[in-house]
């Protein structure tokens, strides 16, 4: 009971419970779920989707939305692939430039939002169109195929047991974000701005700078996600990022993020991604009528979030006591 009331209140506890429960259920029904190869596949999906979720999470933290995460990711991905194919650029500089493009995209978002005071929703929607348009303009909807073999290898191979290489950048970013949001003043400023913008301003926090930093980070992380996905797909697809939006919000929200800002959790968001990945996988493993997949997906999401909620209902009386 002590344990429950101590950890039960943290954001990650519920999602963790759901994750374990889901893994047990899926694993017992389909033993191959826990095979090394399958875990690797799961981790690959998590590695990329977690970055997508982080890049939105940091914007949710300041109480805004970034609709352009997918467009930035896609632009970075095709830039990365394009620079390697067309200009024969070495991998590392290409990747860095790709991230830089994302960073720049984010900074542009942030600067316009904080200078004009127009809602982030509108600005990032416009920039979504712009970034996506540049992507299409460059590629004319044709993929880049010239991905070096090393990148293809890194995008899919494990380095230790079932752990894929791709998990490394994600883990670093995740840890960095956690450190930033819990230990570094800049992270705390981001949360303060999301928690009560007015109060933060009165406390001498520069709203402009904080907003720009958050958007810059978001852009860079989205770009990293795009580059990793490009490595994983072994193609610079112009459609990369088109379907990120919903997931980018869903994972943080499943992880208890407050959409009005001020409260996000890196751990719980990661678990949110894991939950979605397990559910997606379960749908494939169980040979469900393809026409029913969406229904089951919806029900499972509700189930996952519902369990997360139950814990709160149970804990309320405890808190009073």
């Amino acid at each position, binding site marked *: 009971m002590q344990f429950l009331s101590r950890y039960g209140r943290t954001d990650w506890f519920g999602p963790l419970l759901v994750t374990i429960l889901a893994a047990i259920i899926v694993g017992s029904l389909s033993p191959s779920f826990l095979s090394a190869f399958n875990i690797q596949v799961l981790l690959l999906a998590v590695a990329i989707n977690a970055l997508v979720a982080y890049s939105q999470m940091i914007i949710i933290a300041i109480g805004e939305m970034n609709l352009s995460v997918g467009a930035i990711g896609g632009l970075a991905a095709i830039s990365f692939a394009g620079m390697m194919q067309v200009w024969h650029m070495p991998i590392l500089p290409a990747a860095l430039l790709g991230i830089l493009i994302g960073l720049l995209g984010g900074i542009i978002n942030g600067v316009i939002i904080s200078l*004009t005071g127009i809602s982030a*929703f509108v600005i990032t929607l*416009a920039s979504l169109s712009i970034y*996506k348009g540049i992507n*299409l303009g460059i590629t*004319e909807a044709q993929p880049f195929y010239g991905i070096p073999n090393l990148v293809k290898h890194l995008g899919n191979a494990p380095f230790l047991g079932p752990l894929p290489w791709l998990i490394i950048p994600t883990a670093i970013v995740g840890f960095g974000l956690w450190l930033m949001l819990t230990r570094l003043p800049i992270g705390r400023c981001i949360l303060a701005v999301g928690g009560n913008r007015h109060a933060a301003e009165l406390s001498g926090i520069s709203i402009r700078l904080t907003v720009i930093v958050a958007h810059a980070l978001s852009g860079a992380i989205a770009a990293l996600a795009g580059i990793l996905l490009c490595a994983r797909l072994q193609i610079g697809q112009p459609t990369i990022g088109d379907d990120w939006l919903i997931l980018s919000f869903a994972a943080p929200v499943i992880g208890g993020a407050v*959409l009005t800002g001020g409260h996000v959790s890196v751990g719980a968001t990661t678990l949110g991604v894991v939950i979605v990945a397990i559910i997606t996988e379960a749908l494939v493993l169980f040979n469900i009528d393809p*026409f029913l997949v969406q*229904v089951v997906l919806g029900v499972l999401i509700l189930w996952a979030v519902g369990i997360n909620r139950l814990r709160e209902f149970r804990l309320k009386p405890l808190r009073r006591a």
Partner: protein
Amino acid sequence: MHPPSLQIMDISMPSDGPAAASLDASDTTLTPSPRVRRVRFYLTNEFGLVLLIIIFGAAFTFAVPRFLSHFNLFILGRTAAENIVIGFAMMVVVVTGGLDLSVGAIGVCAAMGGGWLMQVAGLPWPLAVIGGLLLGAALGFVNGWAVVRSGLHSFIITLASMSIFFGVMIFITRAQAFRSIPLSFASFAHIRYFGFISPLLLLAVVIMLALVYLYRLTALGREMLAAGARASAAELSGVRVKRVIILCHMLAGLLAGVAGLMLVARNDAAIPSMAGQLGQDWLLPAFLGPVLGGTLLSGGFVSPLGTLLGSFLLTLLTNGLLLLQIGQFWVEAVLGLLLLVAVLLDQARRSFIARRRMI
């Protein structure tokens, strides 16, 4: 930062009220001068949008000779009408500080329901339309009920319900369309009044007027705004917040149904793909109209006229750009740029007025 609140008529104080004597000093300050009122009007979103529509309309007329052709105006109005109603469907939930990702899914379900009633059940189309709308409202009720009962954010509830509604629809229909749509119904999308006005646009305007009536002249509408602005305060003032939120979602479902049925008329068929995978194609127009129109995503403030103008502006930009014949794949980038220019212009207008201290 805040948009102007409800456009409330200014009070004019009777000079012989019981407390007037002691109020003399503040009396003068209680009524804003006509100039302040005029400036306040110039500062509104709606005024800005009208300006932008005029500017861009003029630019397109100048740049594209056929922009003002009857055919193009008709197309423009009809497409705008769809976007406007989709925007309304989202707007009425955004009022509560929530959102409804499932508008598209509900719209398609209502359309398919209506199509089924027309083709398979063979009902006369007015009944089938009512049936489709009721289905939309019912699905909206499910959303609202789930949001209120679970206490979860509507984002997560409608994310799941989007999947469920759409999935059930696809499962039942096997993605097959209903295309025996009575001509008398479908013709609504094809008739042209005076050669260029679509009845659908008129319908959108009527819906806007109804929404204005709701939010300004009924207790329910005012309660929706109050509940959206601050639920705890509204609750303590006697608003049944939960019931009101359910009603908002039902209204969203109903309006999504209207938009869905408009598309049925437009396509002469009820087709599952009309709003894309899971109905997601509607999401951007659904949000963009209200947000451009000044509706706050955090809830509590709404502008039906703004939504109408915002959606119209969006449609206008898209239409004009397509006519401008920009390099194939660059249209989207230019659309984004134009949108950015539009909102920046609007912002500049506001700070210009504010800087000139016209207030």
